[in-house]
């Protein structure tokens, strides 16, 4: 399934291994995401999903193997540099900026592609004001798309849970990514919220024309929207394919439901 040529691959994880002391958390993982594709990475608890996530976002460095984004290596880059390259993420346990308003959470992320620094902020000249207006408009547009503009000046932590998740996605989009990584976005959601989330992810992928890598524990969410799914178990990729192929794959069934006696 990962037969895409090197050129088509936006994210290319090749033969990645990471060991923590004697424990091999992820072993020789081969994995790719194409431009604009919606890919799921699933696996039972402790399979190494979040570790893969942390490898891509620069929190960990792989012990062996390489990760390329847009045909350039992500090796030895810090998380903020990887975000600048076009990989944005959300967090499993929501990490908004609690002392900033909903609006300012988004504005804090927009600053990435803005050049103005200390001198502009102090002098407050025409070009500074112009840019501040642009940032404001951009943030407001984003909030409007997701129906969060009515919460504009509220404290981010006072939003309902589902809206906090949504705001985190908006904030990640504000960094203008080409690949959005979602870390278990359905965690702690009820079935209605999960259904909403599913359509939201689909919407984000189509509206912003970006690739989405969804790391998820919940099978329903992933099966519904992903074009391709990779399954991890004990740090090893045991299957990869379309949702239908994955659903029928005996190895996947075994990993999730246990071995038949």
């Amino acid at each position, binding site marked *: 399934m990962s037969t895409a040529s090197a050129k088509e691959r936006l994210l290319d994880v090749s033969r990645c291994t990471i060991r923590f002391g004697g424990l091999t958390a992820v072993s020789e993982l081969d994995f790719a995401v194409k431009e604009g594709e919606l890919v799921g990475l699933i696996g039972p608890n402790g399979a190494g999903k979040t570790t893969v996530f942390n490898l891509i976002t620069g929190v960990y460095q792989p012990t062996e193997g390489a990760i390329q984004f847009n045909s350039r290596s992500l090796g030895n880059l810090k998380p*903020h540099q990887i*975000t600048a390259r076009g990989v944005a993420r959300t967090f499993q346990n929501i990490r908004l*900026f609690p*002392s900033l308003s909903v609006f300012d959470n988004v504005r*804090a992320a927009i*600053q990435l592609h803005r050049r*103005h620094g200390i001198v502009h*902020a102090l002098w407050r000249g025409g070009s500074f004001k112009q840019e501040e207006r642009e940032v404001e408009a951009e943030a407001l547009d984003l909030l409007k798309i997701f129906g969060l503009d009515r919460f504009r000046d509220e404290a981010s932590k006072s939003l309902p849970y589902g809206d906090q998740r949504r705001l985190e996605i908006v904030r990640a989009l504000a960094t203008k990514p080409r690949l959005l990584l979602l870390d278990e976005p359905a965690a702690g959601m009820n079935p209605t919220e999960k259904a909403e989330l599913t359509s939201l992810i689909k919407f984000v992928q189509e509206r912003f024309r970006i690739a989405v890598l969804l790391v998820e524990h919940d099978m329903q969410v992933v099966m519904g929207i992903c074009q391709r799914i990779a399954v991890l178990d004990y740090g090893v990729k045991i299957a990869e394919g379309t949702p239908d192929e994955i659903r029928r794959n005996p190895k996947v069934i075994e990993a999730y439901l246990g071995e038949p006696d």
Partner: protein
Amino acid sequence: MDRGAKRWLLAAALAVAVVSLFAGQFNRYYLGVTIDIGINIIMAVSLNLINGHTGQFSLGHAGFMAVGGYTAAKLSLLFGAQIPPGAAPIFFAVILLAGGLVAALSGLAVGVPSLRLKGDYLAIVTLGFGEIIRVIFQTTESLGGATGLTGLERYTNLAWAFVLAALTVYVVSCLVNSTYGRGFIAVHDDEVAASAMGINPTKYKVVAFVIGAFFAGIAGGLYAHHKLVLKPDGFDFMRSIEFVVMVILGGMGKTAGVILAAVILTVLPEFLRGFADYRMIIYSLLIIILMMARPQGLFAGWKTGRKQAAPTS
């Protein structure tokens, strides 16, 4: 704050300049205390950028003040005599700036290696820095040793203190209220999330540290030419604590509250001179009670910023 910030700064500076024309008629003692207030506002507001807005707990602010103070004082003792009276304000501005820059440089030297540390560890390193600085000044004979530097010219007046205090408030407020400066608060709130948004936490912390140290250095120069004597024990650990108390009392990251706290904590000890020995006990109790009753700071509730709009649904 966003709109016409420069005009506000100008208006404040003008008001101070007019008032200081009549400063000669004030009681000398009250005038002295008022200048102390200005200097302490600079210290508290600049420390607030580090401790409050950026969330890095520094306990060495008096150390930076000492660096700036000694730099300015030494320069003024070396060259002050050759300066014609007419050029004195320019000379003073130059030595204050020199003090600020040397302090900023020492802020960079301390900040770059130690800002990888967090919380308590950073507090301990900065505390150590403050003490090292003090001991260096205490043992360097060319800087007066334990007796300190004396015979300084009285350059500092009301206008200098408050114009520079206004400038400090302006710089810190403008910085934080900008797209660039929102990064300081993001780093304060959540470093991991901030770096996931492309914000470089280390860079922001170092910038906050250097700018904070710069203004502490300027405050040191003002202090030296206000008290006319510069002694190493004036910059001990307790001094740093005083500024930290101002920031905590005012509410971390709340500039208006911190200014108010700086005023109160400058004036209060003057009224309580009879209990001066117990000041540190009172401060400690104050922090403990505050942390239990109002951890967000005494004046934090009086937010002057944008009103919270009710959801219109």
